[in-house]
Every structure is written in C-alpha cells, then in structure tokens.
C-alpha cells in the first residue's frame, strides 16, 4: 500500500481531481518511497534503448503465478467480511489486481515515453515479473488438482499462470483455506522484473516486379551449403527493405513464380514482403517512391513498380491471383522437322484447349504425383524459320508451359509435339503478363 497518512488523504484527493499526476502528489506530500516508481523507468529505459519507432504501445504484463493464489486468498477474506454484513459480492464486483496495477502504471509509462497506451498497437512491450520468495506458494494446488498440472514439453515449471487459475477455479473454499492463510502473509521483498521484451508487429510492403535476367532464381539457390547462383529476386528486393525498415527478417511471397531462365515482362508479377519486427515503420509515400527508385537503380536484373505499404489482409488478393487468374506467355520453339507457315496456323484457331498434365518430372522430387487439368485459352503463332516459331499463349493459372511444348515424355497430353506431330522443344520463355489487378497501380 502507498504510505499516505490520513492527513494527506484529502490533499491527495483534491490534487488528483485537478489532474495532477501521482508522482507529483507523492512529492508534494513529502513521500520518499521509490519502489512504486522503479518499475516504469527501468522498462522505459529498455524501450528507449531498443531503437524502435512507435506512436503508441501495448503493455503486456505477466505477474508471477503465485500472485493469483494470494489474490484468491484476499478475495475469500473480502467475501467473508461482506457476508458478515449480509452483503453479497460477486467476483466481478472487485477490481482485479492487474487492472489496478494498469490504472496506476499506464499513465506513468505514457508520460515517460510520450505516447498513449493503445490495446490495438502493433508495438508491444512485454514485462515479466517474478517473486522467488513465494514461488512455492502455489505448489499445494498440485496435490489437490493434479490434472491441472500436466508437464508440457517446453515449460520449465508446470506451475504456469493458466494452470494455477484453472486449479483455483476448481478448488473448494474450505480446502483452500486449510492450506493457505487468508489474508496472505506479508512478503519481505517486492517483485522483480526478470524479462523486458520489445517487439513490433510485422508490416507489409507490396509491389510488382519485372525480371530481365535468364539466370536469376526467385529464392536463393543453395545446395549443401553452397550457393549455386548469385543472388535472387527476393534478395534483390528485400535486402533494401530490410535495411530501411530495420527489420529482423523478411518473408517474401508472390502471385506464382517463374523459373530461373524465364523473364517476367509486361506489368510484372505481384509480390508482398512481410517485414518481421521492424524498428522503423512510418514512411511517407515520397519516401517509399525513393526506396523503389533505390531498388531499381541497384540492379538491372529486376525492376520494381507500385511499391506500397499494405495490410496483412490485402495479401489474400495476391494468393487468389495465383490460383484463379490467367497468365500470358511468349515462347520460342524449336522443331526437329522443317516447318512452313501453314504448319503452325491451325494453332491460332484452337480455343480453350483442355490439357492433362502429370506432375512434371523436373519437379516430381518435391511435388506430389498427380494429374492436373488445365486450359490453354488461346494461342498466337509467329513464324521465324524452318525450325523455329514463336508462340504466344494465354493459359489458366498453374499451367506448366515448358511441358506443354515438349510433352514431358508424353505425360502432358495433348502437347505441341502431339498437335503438330513433330519433336519440339522450348528454347526461351517469357511471362508477358500476370492478370491480377493487385496491388493497386500508383501513378509515378
């Protein structure tokens, strides 16, 4: 309890009603008791030192589990006293210790850190308290409710707050009073802080990328610890974001992907990057534009457009695109037999061709064996020479284009080889468009 004397009481009340902060009230009353002040500042120091940028925060406080036992004891005593006066009191009529603690400390935190406390804030400061002196106070509960205290895999102690609360709800009042004093004994020391963690919820950046290299994987290509190809689409884009947002790590996802040797032209492919635990989160649209420029200046293998901050929910649009939207491609095809223009013209007239594709051999080691039906909506041919022609195609999402051309040992049917009765192979493939209208296009 705070050591305000009876004389101070109405002074304190008056000051409080004028909006004076508790700290000042104590000072005014000449109270020299630092314990209640120690906590916020220790935590505040850690928060300030952590280098996060934030405009609000949410505080998660963990009390030692045995505190619930002591609170329960106090509650039983209060209930008993109220009963003596023929008044009944529900558990919800009393203020929980944690609530009272928040009422006192939240304004202190707010003032020191200069930001409001907001339950919806993405910036979380978690503080864990311990009180070694009374750690065994809750152990008696195990004898009475053993099934509440099953050892979980990663926990050091079975006496978690959840388990203790569960047992307290089960235990009969008489049994509790036999084992634990009401009111609880007064401890010698106050709680100490054992852990202070700061973390910021992830932020999301989306955009569209073009890929101009035929020698760039989407994700880093590492076998047996050895990097097989320099860099990757995801690193060329994300590394800059990681630096500027001062994030711990990133998760890159896109609306489908292309092979190492395939270019992505046209409007580009939608992507989204989750930046984990970013220390900096506020950017103007100008700053984002500059970031986009920086990424584009740093490499000619990829280019990025429509870079913008988005919400987690928006990511759903992109994944929807992967499964539902059409894509258009352009392929350079070689044939073993000599061909004339008339030999390829018929392909222009084929609409909505259904093909059955068994899982291509080149991905069978990491994909389940299955047959997938896909639709080639339309095709357009451009004759090059006796052994080459260009084929533009518009297909359903998830179509393996290379296999449609060479047939994959006849495991994709029909295919260009079977349609033209030649042996054909694909020399070059480009993605011309990914028909997803997300993220929203930005005017530059």
């Amino acid at each position: 309890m705070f050591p305000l004397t009876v004389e101070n009481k109405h002074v304190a009340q008056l000051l409080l009603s004028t909006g004076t902060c508790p700290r000042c009230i104590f000072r005014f009353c000449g109270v020299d008791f630092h314990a209640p002040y120690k906590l916020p500042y220790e935590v505040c120091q850690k928060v300030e030192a952590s280098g996060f940028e934030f405009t609000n925060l949410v505080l998660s406080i963990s009390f030692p589990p045995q505190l619930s036992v002591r609170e329960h004891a106090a509650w039983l005593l209060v209930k008993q006293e109220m009963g003596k006066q023929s008044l009944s009191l529900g558990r919800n009529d009393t203020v929980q210790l944690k609530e009272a603690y928040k009422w006192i400390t939240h304004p202190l935190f707010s003032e020191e850190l200069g930001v409001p406390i907001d339950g919806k804030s993405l910036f979380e400061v978690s503080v864990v308290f311990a009180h070694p002196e009374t750690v065994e106070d809750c152990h008696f509960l195990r004898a009475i409710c053993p099934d509440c205290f099953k050892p979980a895999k990663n926990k050091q102690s079975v006496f978690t707050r959840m388990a203790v609360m569960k047992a307290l709800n089960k235990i009969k009042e008489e049994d509790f009073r036999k084992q634990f004093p009401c009111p609880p004994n007064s401890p010698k020391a106050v709680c100490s802080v054992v852990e202070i963690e700061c973390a910021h919820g992830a932020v999301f950046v989306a955009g569209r990328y073009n890929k101009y290299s035929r020698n760039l994987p989407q994700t880093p290509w590492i076998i047996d610890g050895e990097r097989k190809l320099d860099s990757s689409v995801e690193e060329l884009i994300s590394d800059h974001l990681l630096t500027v947002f001062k994030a711990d790590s990133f998760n890159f996802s896109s609306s489908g992907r292309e092979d190492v040797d395939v270019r992505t032209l046209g409007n580009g492919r939608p992507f989204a990057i989750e930046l984990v635990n970013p220390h900096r989160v506020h950017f103007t649209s100008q700053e984002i534009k500059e970031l986009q420029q920086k990424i584009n200046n740093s490499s000619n293998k990829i280019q990025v457009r429509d870079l913008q901050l988005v919400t987690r929910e928006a990511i759903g649009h992109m994944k929807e695109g992967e499964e539902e939207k059409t894509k258009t491609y352009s392929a350079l095809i070689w044939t073993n037999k000599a061909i004339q223009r008339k030999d390829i013209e018929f392909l222009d007239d084929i609409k909505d061709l259904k093909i059955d594709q068994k899982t291509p051999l080149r991905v069978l080691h990491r994909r389940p064996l299955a047959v997938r039906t896909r639709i080639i909506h339309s095709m357009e041919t451009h004759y090059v020479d006796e052994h080459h022609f260009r084929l533009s195609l518009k297909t359903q999402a998830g179509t393996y284009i290379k296999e449609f051309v060479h047939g994959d040992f006849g495991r994709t049917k029909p295919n260009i080889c079977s349609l033209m009765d030649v042996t054909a192979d694909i020399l070059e493939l480009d993605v011309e468009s990914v028909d997803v209208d997300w993220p929203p296009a930005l005017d530059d």
Partner: protein
Amino acid sequence: MATEPETPEDALAVEPAVPSLVFHYFTCWYKADVKGKPCEDHCILQHSNRICVITLAGSHVVLQSGKAIKRISYQISTNCSRLQNKVSRKFKLGAQILTELSPLCKIYCSDGEEYTMSSCVRGQLMEVNESILHKPSILQEKPSTEGYTAVVLPKFEESKSITEWVLTQKQYDEVVVKRINATTATS
C-alpha cells in the same frame, strides 16, 4: 564391304539416344546385358533432381531385331502388378520398392519371345507408362521419350552413388562397338 562404324548410332541406325534438347537436363546412364541376357540393354535417364526414367537403350534386342511386339504387361508375378502402384502425396508413401533387378514389365513379341525390363536403379517406383499398354509400338518408335517404361525416385543418399553400377555414355558406346566388331568378325 561396309566401312567400320564410327559410333554406335551409325552401327545401329537408330535415332541418337538424346533426340531433343529436353535431355540437356538429363544424364544418360546405361546397363548392358541386363541379368546376363545378351543385348538386353537399358538406358537410365537421370534428371538433375535425381529422378530416373527407365527406357530401352537403342541397342536393345527389341529395338534392333525389328520384331513386332504383341503386348506388354505390368503383371510381373502372380501377386504383383506395377499398375497397382499407388504413390501418395509429397512424401511418396506407398510406392513399390525396387532394387536393380526388380522386374518392371514383360514384353511379349509376336515370335513368341519374351523380354523382361528391369529397374536398374534402387528406389521407389513413381509411375509406369500406361500408354505403351494401349499402343506397344510406341516403345519401338520413341523409346527415349513417349515409350519410356517407368519413373523411379532413388533414395536421396543413393542418388549420387548410382554411377557406381551403371555405364556412362562413353563406356556404353565402347561396349556396343566392341559387340558389333565381335559379330562382324565372326560372320
């Protein structure tokens, strides 16, 4: 008198074992005289992801002799049909386990001769080619592509040691040329 053949392809007058650019992702390995039977040569096309496609080598009797195939069967014993192979999901559970000598299929020719194709590779059977059941001639027309027999997934640890018991392209070519010269010499 004919000139000495330069390459096995000249000697055998078949399409090269690597008919198209598809195979720049595959390495060709060979097993000659499988199970001690003369000229029953197999070609294993191994992808860079370790998956193996089992096919007839150009020098195999069935391709060289010009005999007609009556039918092909995946029923390799009373209790075992390769058609019953069921591979589930990503981890390929339920696949039939193969050793190098495991039979894959039987080829019945119209002259009454019977030839068995063997796995040549240890691993899990992914699939067998059902189109050759309906049209056996594909086996002879396009042995290295549409006429493949089976797809086998070697165990990851063993995928590199496959080279220990098969022939490289070069070694195979030498075997074939030697064989041809031996036949020419005795005739």
